[in-house]
C-alpha cells in the first residue's frame, strides 16, 4: 500500500458491487486483510500508509478497532446485497503499519468481528505482522488463544548498522526471544528480511540470512529495498548522503539468500518467499497472486472481489469520517475487463512456483516458451510437463518474463 492510490473510477457510496463480481465466487477463496495504519516512528525507507501519533490529525488509535469492525460488518452486508454467496474466511491477515501497536484485545475484537460476519473456514490461516519490540510473551499468548495461527516478524536485518540506516528501532538480540515466545504460544513464525540497504555488504546480508535461519522459522521473506519517491531515504540518496544499491548488486544479494535458504531446507514458492514445506506457505499472500477474493479493511486498504478492485481513502481521519457517516470508505475502484484480468493472471501467477499452465497462454505467449527456456529463464522440465516455472535467473527477471509471455 505504498505511494499514491491508483487512478480509477469513482466508487459508489453504498459500496455495492456489480453483478459480475459474484460470478464464480464459490470457486474462489475469500480472505480478509485488516490494515492497522499506526507506527511508533516512521522508518526512513517506508512509504506505506501508516501514521505516527503526531501525524494523525484528530484520528485516534483508540477508536480504530471500532471503526474497522464497522467496516467488517458493513462489508458483510454489502457482499450479501451484491449477491455474492456466503463464504467463510480462509485467511485473515493483519498488516500495517504496526498491528501490534494496538492492544492485543483490539486485534482479538477485530478477528471476532470477521468470525461473526463470515465465519472462519476450518484450518483458516490467521496472521499478524509484528515488530520484535512491540510484543511480549503475554501478548503473543493472548493472540494464539484467540485464534491467531501465525506471526510475521519484521526482522529486516541482524546487523545494527543496517537497521540504523533503515531506522528500525528494535534490538536484533530481541528476535530470538520473540520467536521463542511465539513458538511457545503455538504460533507459526515467519521472518521478514530486507536486502540492498545502502551501505549493506554481502557479508552483512549473509549474517542476517544465517541469523534468520538459526531461528528456524517455518517461513522467510526477503524483499529488496525499493527506494520510494517521497521517503526520507530517497531524499538522503538524492542529497548524496547515502549511496543507492544498484540492481546488479541486489541480484547478488538475492542469489546468496536463495543459496543459503535452499541449503537450509527452505524452498521458494514465490519470488520473494521461502517456506520449509507447502503447508507453511503464506496462504494469504498466495491468494493475492492467484487472484482470489479478499476484502481489505482500513485506510488505504485494497480489495478484490470477482474482477472488481477498489481501495479505501488513505488517511485514518478521512476513513473515520466515512465510517461514522455510514458511507463506504472506498476512494476509487476499477472493474477489470476480460483482457485485463487475463493480463493480471499472467502477471501474478508467473511469480509463484507452480506458475502458469502453458496451454492457458495466448498463441504469441506460447511461442515465447522455447526462447525463455533457451535464455534459462524458465525451467525446461516444468515447461515440458506444461507449466512455466521460473529459474533463479528467471525469478530475478520475472517482470521481463511476464512481458514476453504477454506478447499478445
Amino acid at each position, binding site marked *: 500500500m505504498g505511494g499514491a492510490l491508483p487512478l480509477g473510477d469513482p466508487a459508489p457510496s453504498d459500496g455495492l458491487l456489480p453483478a459480475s463480481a459474484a460470478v464464480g465466487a464459490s470457486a474462489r477463496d475469500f480472505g480478509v486483510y485488516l490494515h492497522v495504519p499506526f507506527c511508533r516512528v516512521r522508518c526512513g525507507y517506508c512509504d506505506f500508509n501508516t501514521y505516527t501519533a503526531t501525524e494523525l490529525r484528530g484520528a485516534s488509535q483508540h477508536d480504530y478497532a471500532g471503526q474497522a469492525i464497522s467496516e467488517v460488518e458493513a462489508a458483510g452486508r454489502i457482499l450479501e446485497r451484491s449477491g455474492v454467496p456466503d463464504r467463510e474466511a480462509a485467511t485473515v491477515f493483519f*498488516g500495517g503499519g504496526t498491528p501490534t501497536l494496538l492492544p492485543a484485545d483490539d486485534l482479538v475484537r477485530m478477528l471476532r468481528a470477521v468470525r461473526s460476519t463470515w465465519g472462519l473456514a476450518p484450518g483458516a490461516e490467521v496472521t499478524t505482522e509484528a515488530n520484535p519490540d512491540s510484543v511480549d510473551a503475554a501478548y503473543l499468548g493472548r493472540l494464539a488463544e484467540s485464534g491467531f495461527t501465525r506471526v510475521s516478524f519484521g526482522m529486516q536485518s541482524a546487523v545494527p548498522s543496517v537497521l540504523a540506516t533503515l531506522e528500525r528501532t528494535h534490538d536484533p538480540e530481541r528476535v530470538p526471544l520473540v520467536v521463542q515466545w511465539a513458538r511457545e504460544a503455538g504460533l507459526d513464525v515467519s521472518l521478514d528480511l530486507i536486502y540492498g540497504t545502502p551501505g549493506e555488504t554481502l557479508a552483512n546480508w549473509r549474517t542476517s540470512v544465517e541469523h534468520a535461519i538459526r531461528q528456524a522459522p517455518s517461513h522467510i521473506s526477503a*524483499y529488496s529495498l525499493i527506494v520510494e519517491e517521497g521517503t526520507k531515504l530517497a531524499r538522503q540518496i538524492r542529497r548524496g548522503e547515502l549511496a543507492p544499491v544498484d*540492481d546488479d548488486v541486489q541480484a547478488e544479494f538475492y542469489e546468496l539468500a536463495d543459496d543459503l535458504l535452499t541449503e537450509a531446507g527452505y524452498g521458494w514458492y514465490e*519470488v520473494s518467499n521461502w517456506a520449509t514445506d507447502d503447508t507453511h506457505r503464506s496462504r494469504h499472500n498466495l491468494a493475492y497472486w492467484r487472484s482470489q477474493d479478499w476484502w*481489505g479493511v482500513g485506510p488505504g486498504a485494497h480489495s478484490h472481489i470477482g474482477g472488481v478492485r477498489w*481501495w479505501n481513502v488513505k488517511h485514518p481521519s478521512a476513513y473515520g469520517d466515512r465510517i461514522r457517516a455510514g458511507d463506504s470508505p472506498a476512494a476509487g475502484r*476499477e472493474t477489470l475487463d476480460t483482457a485485463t484480468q487475463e493480463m493480471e493472471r499472467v502477471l501474478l501467477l508467473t511469480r509463484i512456483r507452480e506458475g502458469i499452465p502453458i496451454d492457458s497462454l495466448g498463441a504469441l505467449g506460447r511461442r515465447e516458451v522455447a526462447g525463455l527456456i533457451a535464455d534459462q529463464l524458465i525451467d525446461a522440465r516444468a515447461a515440458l510437463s506444461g507449466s512455466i516455472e521460473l529459474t533463479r535467473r528467471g525469478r530475478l527477471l520475472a517482470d521481463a518474463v511476464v512481458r514476453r509471455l504477454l506478447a499478445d
Partner: protein
Amino acid sequence: MSPRPLTALEPAATPPEFIRNFCIIAHIDHGKSTLADRMLQITGIVDDRSMRAQYLDRMDIERERGITIKSQAVRMPWELDGQTYALNMIDTPGHVDFTYEVSRSLAACEGAILLVDAAQGIEAQTLANLYLALENDLTIIPVLNKIDLPAADPDKYAKELASLIGGSPDDVLRVSGKTGVGVAELLDRATRLIPAPEGDPAAPARAMIFDSVYDSYRGVVTYVRMIDGKLNPREKIQMMSTRATHEILEIGVTSPEPTNSKGLGVGEVGYLITGVKDVRQSKVGDTVTTALRPATVALPGYTEPKPMVFSGLYPIDGSDYPALREALDKLKLSDASLVYEPETSVALGFGFRCGFLGLLHLEIITERLDREFGLDLITTAPSVIYEVTTDDKKTVTVTNPSEFPNGKIAKVEEPIVKAAILAPKDYVGVIMELCQSRRGTLLGMDYLGEDRVEIRYTMPLGEIVFDFFDNLKSRTAGYGSLDYEPIGSQEADLVKVDILLQGEQVDAFSAIVHRDKAYDYGVLMTGRLRKLIPRQQFDVPIQAAIGARIIARESISAIRKDVLAKCYGGDISRKRKLLEKQKEGKKRMKMVGRVEVPQEAFIAALSGDEPPKKK
C-alpha cells in the same frame, strides 16, 4: 546623384544599348538583400511606405537565415546624363551547393557587383563566385558594404579587393545598404561601366533559363535572359533540351512585382508562365526558342543537376511516412535538383534516400520539411557517390553504404573536390592539421591582404560531408570559410565498416571510410551504442567489422534483476499499471535481431549526442 527617371523604358521596346544586366556577388550576411532593398527604393519602384526588409526574399526560411536560395530578377529604371536606362538586377544564390545555378545567373549578366562586408573581408564562397564571374568575362564593380559599422575597416579591405581583381583601392566603392550612403553612386557606376548586352534581333529567338520557381497559384515561373530574337505573348515556345512545347500564357518583367509586357527583346530579362506544374519541365540552363521558327543551336553551358551528397531521411514517427512522401513530392515541384527514392532500414523503418547538391542543400530541405510540413525527421550520415569495381570487373555505383558490394574489391573511386578555405593567418596551422587529417593534399596558399590567407586543398568530398565544416568553424573560432568544387575522382583504399548488434548488422550505421580511419570509426560507434542501448536479458556484443573481420568490440552485459520484489498489501492495480507502462515502452523499441533498441538511441548515436542512459 542622378534624379529618379520620370518614365521607365517599355519592355520589348528597349534598345539593348540602354539595358544593363548585373548581379551581386556576396557572402551570406554581407548585406546583399539590404543593398537590394535600397536600390528598389532609390530607383522608385518600391515606395518608402510599402518597403519591407529583404523585399526580394520570398521564402520565410530565406529571410530568417539571411540567405537567398532562389534568385529573381528585378527591372529598375535609372537615369544617367539625361538618358533613361533599364537596369536588371539578377539575384544569385550565395552558396557553393548551387554553383551551377550561380553560373547560369552569371551567364545572364554582363557585370557583377562584388559586395564585401567592410568589417569582415571577402569569404571563400564569394571568391569562388568571383572566379566564375571572371570566367564569364563579367565587368566587376568592387564595393565595400556596411561602412556604417563601427568595426568596419574599409581601407584594409579595399586593399584586399584591389589586390584580388587589380586596380586601385580608390576604385572600391564604399556604401551602406542600411543607410543608403553611396548606393546612387553605385548605380551610376554600374550604368557607366557595365557593357550593354549584344544579340541578333533578327535571329530565331534564344533565351536562357537562369531560374525556375514553383508558385502554388501560377505554376512554374521561368526566368529568362533573352539573347537573340524576341518572345511574344501567346507564342508557342520550345525547350531545346527536351523539345517539349508550351504556350506562353504570360510574359513580363518583375519590377518588383510581376508586370505583363508585350514581350521580351534582345538583352532583356523577364519571366514566362506556361502553366507547367513541375520545375523539371523548365530546367535551369536550358534554351527557350519558338516552336514556329526554332533556333538550331542551343546556348552553351546547360547540364542536368547532379546530386553530390546522399542521405536517408526517416520520420521519427513511423506513421508520418506518407506525409513525408507527400512533402517531398511538393518540394520537388520547386527544386529540380532534389531526387529521392523509398528506402527501408531495420533501425529506422521506412524513409527515403535523397540526393542533394551539397550539405547546405540537404540542410535547407530538411529544415523546410520540418518547418513547412511539420515533419520530425532523422537524417543518416551523408554519403557521396563511389564507383566500386569488384574483382570480377563489375562496376557498381554506390550512394548508400548498403549498396557496397560484398566480396573482393578491385578498386574504389571516390569524388574529390578542390577546396578553398579562407581564414585569418593565425589559423593556418589548425586548418592544415584538419585538412591533412581528412586526407587533403595541399595545392597552395595565398595571402589576401595582410592577415588573411586562402588555403587550397584537394580533398575527398566524402571527408567534407562528414562534419568537416563544423570542425572548421570550431577550430577557427567561426572565422574560417569554405568553398569547394568537384574536380573529378580518385582511387582510394576505402572499406565499408558495418556495425553489428549481437551479430546483426545495423544498416543505418554502416559507413564507407578510408581503411586508416576504419578502426576509429568502429571504436567511436560501438562506444556510443554501448552507452545508449539499454541492457537486455542477455549479453549484447557490439562489433565493428570490415567484411567478416571484427575491428572493434564493446559489450553490454545482461541485466540481472528486473522484478518488483513485493506487491504492496494487495495493490495489484499499481503493479499492473507499471507493466502496462513497460509494455507501452516496448512498442517504441526497434528490434535488431533480438535486441530491443529505443529509437532515441539510434537517433542519438547518429547525431553524436549522448544523453544519459535511462534506467
